[in-house]
């Protein structure tokens, strides 16, 4: 870290004032964008996701950001940019040479944390936005579409949402109405969850690029779990059911170089969230005599919250990288219940630092990565009211993992301890 900062200071010393000159800050009129090496991925999708357009002039910085943006796509391993002459003097063809992943894909976060497990924060510690495990297949259809099917486990680790596993099928439309936005429609059927199986439920995700580095992602995720009856010793037969609807709008600024395990760049995000949860079943509460008793419950909860996080990655060498980040969030929940309404707040704050070392050199990293990573984090979480007890956790966690990224997907296995 010190070395990087020192190098930056030295480079500042040899930096000269920025000027619009032809060597250091050139701009290029791009008359056409051509994608090469595309066998399964639609070239139109690649062009759309680069956020670059033919018929415009771009600086090298903008082209570099476009290349980084493509490198973060889960279905590309790499994207190299080069220029060729266009039809007239001063016009250029931007050639994007890609390396694709396989149509079959997986994402498995198999890290085991022993001890105190209550440390995660929304989307902060998982491989990709709360997705702990994904197994699926992706086909590109037409010029701007892709169909996917698969199994996935969603665990955003919020206090006021429920995790679930589901089978899903979906369609993504890229470059919607020529705007570079995309929309994904998922139909998912939950299975094997604590809340039981579920009914076919929709999820709609819309990504709107605000600039090459900034994206607004709107997500509506509805999950309807099956209604079922269960026998309770004290209460007899109780009907249980659960439905949750999560609406979020995530603004992100992202200059990282990879989709799942970045080694350089910055990612900042702010996510307002609204959650509606309807539950029927049993709740255990502590009475005035300090005994815990079950009660039949009908609850209609509404939560409003906001999460924010900032992470930065620095490459120290072609194999070594360090990272640091902070995250925090707040939410308030109002629950209307048959046994009395309640309101409570949830907060969390996390600070973390990491180091990773690749077993592969830079040339080989074009085809993926094999990397050890180590992470230290401290978290404070609190929730004013919980089912069994007041929770106010200050937790430290240390973990180590091996991450393997290939054209098939990303696997993380490792071990950690929290106390």
């Amino acid at each position, binding site marked *: 870290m010190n070395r990087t900062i020192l190098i930056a200071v030295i480079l500042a*010393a040899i930096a000269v004032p920025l000027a619009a000159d032809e060597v250091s800050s050139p701009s290029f009129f791009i008359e056409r964008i051509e994608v090469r090496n595309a066998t399964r991925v639609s070239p139109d999708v690649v062009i759309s996701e680069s956020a670059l357009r033919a018929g415009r002039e771009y600086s090298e*910085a903008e082209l*570099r950001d476009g290349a980084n943006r493509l490198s973060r796509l889960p279905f590309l391993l790499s994207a190299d940019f*080069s220029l060729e002459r266009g039809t007239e003097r001063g016009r250029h063809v931007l050639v994007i040479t890609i390396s694709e992943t396989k149509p079959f894909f997986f994402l498995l976060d198999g890290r085991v944390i022993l001890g105190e497990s209550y440390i995660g924060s929304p989307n902060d510690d998982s491989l990709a936005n709360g997705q702990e495990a994904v197994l699926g297949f992706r086909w590109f259809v037409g010029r701007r579409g892709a169909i996917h099917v698969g199994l996935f486990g969603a665990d955003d680790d919020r206090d006021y949402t429920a995790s679930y596993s589901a089978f899903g099928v979906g369609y993504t439309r890229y470059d919607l109405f020529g705007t570079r936005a995309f929309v994904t429609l998922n139909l998912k059927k939950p299975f094997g969850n604590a809340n039981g199986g579920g009914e076919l439920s929709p999820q709609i995700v819309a990504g709107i690029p605000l600039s090459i580095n900034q994206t607004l992602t709107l997500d509506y995720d509805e999950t309807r779990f099956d209604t079922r009856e269960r026998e309770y010793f004290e209460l007899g037969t109780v009907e249980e059911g659960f439905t949750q609807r999560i609406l979020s709008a995530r603004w992100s600024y992202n200059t990282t170089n990879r989709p799942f395990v970045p080694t350089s760049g910055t990612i900042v995000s702010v996510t307002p969230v609204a959650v509606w949860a309807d539950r029927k079943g049993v709740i255990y509460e502590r009475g005035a005599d300090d005994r815990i008793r079950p009660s039949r419950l009908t609850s209609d909860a509404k939560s409003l919250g906001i999460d924010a996080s900032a992470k930065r990655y620095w490459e120290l060498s072609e194999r070594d990288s360090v990272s640091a980040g902070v995250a925090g969030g707040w939410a308030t929940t109002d629950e209307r219940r048959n046994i009395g309404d309640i309101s409570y707040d949830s907060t969390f704050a996390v600070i973390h630092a990491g180091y990773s070392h690749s077993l592969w050199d830079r040339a080989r990293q074009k085809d993926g990565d094999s990397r050890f990573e180590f992470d230290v984090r401290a978290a404070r979480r609190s929730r004013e009211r919980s089912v069994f007890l007041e929770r106010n956790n200050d937790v430290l966690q240390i973990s180590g993992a091996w991450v393997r990224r290939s054209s098939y997907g990303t696997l993380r296995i490792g071990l950690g301890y929290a106390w």
Partner: protein
Amino acid sequence: MVTRAAWLIVLIAAAAFAHAQSRPAFTVQPGGVVAATLPPSVLQDPGVRKQLGSGLTTTFLVVARQREAGILSGARLEIRYDLWDEVWLVRKIEFDRREERQRITSREALEKWWRAPLRLLATGRERVSLQIDLNVLPFSAAEEEDARQWISKSGGVGTGGAGNAGFVEALIGTTISARPITTFKWNVALSLKEP
């Protein structure tokens, strides 16, 4: 037998020549200025050749660390092939901010420019041990304007004067966006004493 010995000598000489060609040569200029002549083999590296032919800028960041004093210094070279004018546009910024720009019309002239001594540091010491890192970056090292503005607006390190702006420029140019194509490292001990 004689033929074999001759071949052996030729092979050893070729290996020694190749080794010499893969390392920078150093000269000491008046004022204790250390200059490096970068090896032509850098330009022959497959990744570097590919980037040089891309029509986009290739940036060579040379960082020299004086091991005893822990002092860092460096220089920067930028090369871009203009597809329409068919010339190499080059820029050299040395440790004391001395800047030079040229339009070079042939690959041979480019390699000649590349072999010109690059002034890396000035020192008053009689001996210096240097670690030289050469990072080859795709695209220009000039920082991305909106990232700089964004950091400045967010209250980051770039809110101050020109010094801070330079710091942000270097930081962004080297740590946010520029993932090196390749990196070369050399260690060298130099005697600066007059013979």
